[in-house]
């Protein structure tokens, strides 16, 4: 009597998509609106501010942020490689690339930690100035996204990878969806870097 839900793995013929792919893109659309709201806040507060101070005033390190940009871009590349390895049925390559992706995420957070603690040691807190309030809130929320994506990728690298034996197609779809999210997180940073560090 109870029927299985169709199109969880195979695409529906007339839409050409499976459920997961529509779901993840809708989720990303809402994420765009979340960060859109945050960036709108940045613009309105900056335009309306009478004593705006740029990131350089608070010693925000462009080299560190640039390194982080490279780290995230690298992780996006390895994320695609991990997915492509699954398409080519090369599971050990997948493990390797996914491992690098997770480590890059970790590296990003370590650099972020160094940046945060150096701000705190200079007495710069979110309450110090409106720029720092924006800096900590925007990078903090982005950091939460990095941790979320990284955790799920780690799961897909470790215990979640058992699915490769039982349902390889579904597993590949999961990696693809996780990859889409990871690229989005990367893209947000591509916007955050110039907005907070350079402009």
């Amino acid at each position, binding site marked *: 009597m*109870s*029927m299985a839900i169709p199109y969880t793995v195979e695409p529906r013929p007339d839409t050409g998509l499976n459920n997961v792919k529509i779901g993840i893109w809708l989720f990303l659309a809402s994420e765009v609106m979340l960060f*859109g709201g*945050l960036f709108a806040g940045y613009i309105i507060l900056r335009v309306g501010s009478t004593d705006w101070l740029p990131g350089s005033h608070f010693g925000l390190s462009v080299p560190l942020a640039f390194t982080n940009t490279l780290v995230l871009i690298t992780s996006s590349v390895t994320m695609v490689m991990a997915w492509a390895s699954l398409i080519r049925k090369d599971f050990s390559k997948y493990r390797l690339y996914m491992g690098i992706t997770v480590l890059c995420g970790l590296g990003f957070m370590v650099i972020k930690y160094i940046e945060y603690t150096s701000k705190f040691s200079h007495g710069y807190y*979110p*309450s110090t100035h*409106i720029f720092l309030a924006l800096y*900590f809130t925007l990078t903090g929320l982005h950091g939460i996204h990095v941790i979320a994506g990284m955790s799920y990728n780690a799961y897909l690298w470790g215990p979640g990878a058992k699915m490769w034996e039982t349902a390889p197609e579904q597993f590949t779809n999961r990696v693809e969806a996780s990859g889409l999210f990871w690229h989005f997180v990367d893209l947000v940073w591509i916007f955050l870097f110039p907005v907070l560090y350079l402009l």
Partner: protein
Amino acid sequence: MSDHEHEHHEELSFWRKYVFSTDHKVIGIQYTITALIFLFFGFTLMMLMRWQLAFPGKALPIIGALFGPDRMPGGIMLPEFYNQLGAMHGTIMVFMGVVPLAVGGFGNFVVPLQIGAPDMTFPRLNMLSYWCYFVGGVIMFASFFVPGGAAQSGWTSYPPLSDIATQGQTWWLCGMMALIFSSLLGAINFITTIIQLRAPGLSFFRFPFFVWAQFVTSFLLLLAFPPLQAASFFQLMDRIFGTSFFMPEGLVISGELSAATGGGSPILWQHLFWFLAHPEVYVLILPALGIVAEVIANNTRRPIWGYKSMVYSLIFLGFMSFIVWAHHMFLTGMGSSMSAFFQTTTMIISIPSVIILTALILSLWGGSIRFTTPMLFALAFLPMFGIGGLTGLPLGLASTDIHLHDTYYVIGHFHYVVAPGTLFAMFAGIYYWYPKATGRKMSDFLGKLHFWPSLIFMNGIFMPMMIQGLAGMQRRLYDGGEIYAHTQTALHWHKVISISAWGLALAQIPFIINFFMSLRNPKTAGDNPWHSTTLEWAAPSPPPHGNFTELPTVYRAAYEYSHPDHDEDYLPQFQADRQAKPAAATT
């Protein structure tokens, strides 16, 4: 319940079947019941406020003493408690009452059935969505008992007041986060389900209007809520880490300069809040329009008039609802060019709403109307929503809004839309789909006993508010405007409104009795008690797990009533052949 459990003894335990269920129908019923409880709770808060407004400063008899000295010492309401009641009434009714009922309840139960799907695409996310809502509700409810009580800054939580309010505001923000997360998961699920799990033959223009309404509503929830989430993060930062996102420089609080560093903008919150909250108005109304369309088609026994123009209007309305938000902010001094833009878009958005309402009214023309209980509520919806919509026009124009803003007129206006409007549609939906959910029809007599007093009292509450508002009476006044000279002529209406509100509460008793007693109705309703055409009536009542005994195929548009070449007055979407009129063939 236990008998029922034994019948379906198969694989699932009680907890998995009724509590942590992934079945869209169980989740829909969970949503419905939780939302009805919250609606009743939110209504109770308002009834307490109505005492204070009708009889300011007088002790509330009998139950007044129960609230304790920090809320109602000697039964007399404190201003702080009045503010809590006001803020939480709005929050609960909108975010924990009407929206979860309309989308989480009706959407979850009806949409997969109406599109011929076995369930939602992501059943576990669906369960998570309900439990996020539940947690959000618990947080909001618990906030009444923290030091300083619940949030006091209105349902809109305008800063700087909300930034410096007591702890309850932090709870409000955390509760909102959970509710936003819940609606996000729900919205993703609805859109994916509607796109992917349509039965064979069910193209988009064969959808029942209710499915279209839920589809557009889900996009509004998906895209409008995140900016409020961003704003809530900002406000949490302000309250916990002492940032100044919404705190301007040189703010003086109780005669002292604020310690906040400043540099923020209180208007920013209003923009982000109304960017959600205006589409939210359409989240409140679109599912209601969907339900009314279903009930009207079914009870006039003829197709909906102008189905396609209604669908196009709906989509246009969805787009436009994202660019009208600042008509809530004409008084903020944001500038006349901004006002000009937003009043223009506001006038434009009224056009699709009027098209939909007109199409529904024209659908009555020439129909052989059955005055069933759901139809009475749906019929009453039309003029009530009409009054609500038309009284909104003066509020959408900046020049007239300056006089009316923040008066009881505004309250009267949006309550006409949401209370005798949306809530009547919700009641219509409950009476209409109750047989599908339970296998039993609700009593028609008790239904009418519920309907007529509700209609009278609803108008007794909200019509006088228009009069008060036009007289210049401000909203959110603890004493109901007693101290102002210019409101004296409108003060006596407070008693009329309050007595109507308590009358409205009594009018719900037949509904509550009906809701529970009809479960024991010995007569079963059958699969299609209303002789309806849409797919949910192809499933057994109540539908089993997986919904349909066999996957339905769709052969035609949604509302083929009184087809001239068919011998019955309804031709279901799922019925393959139409029968020639003279022949009395059996199927």
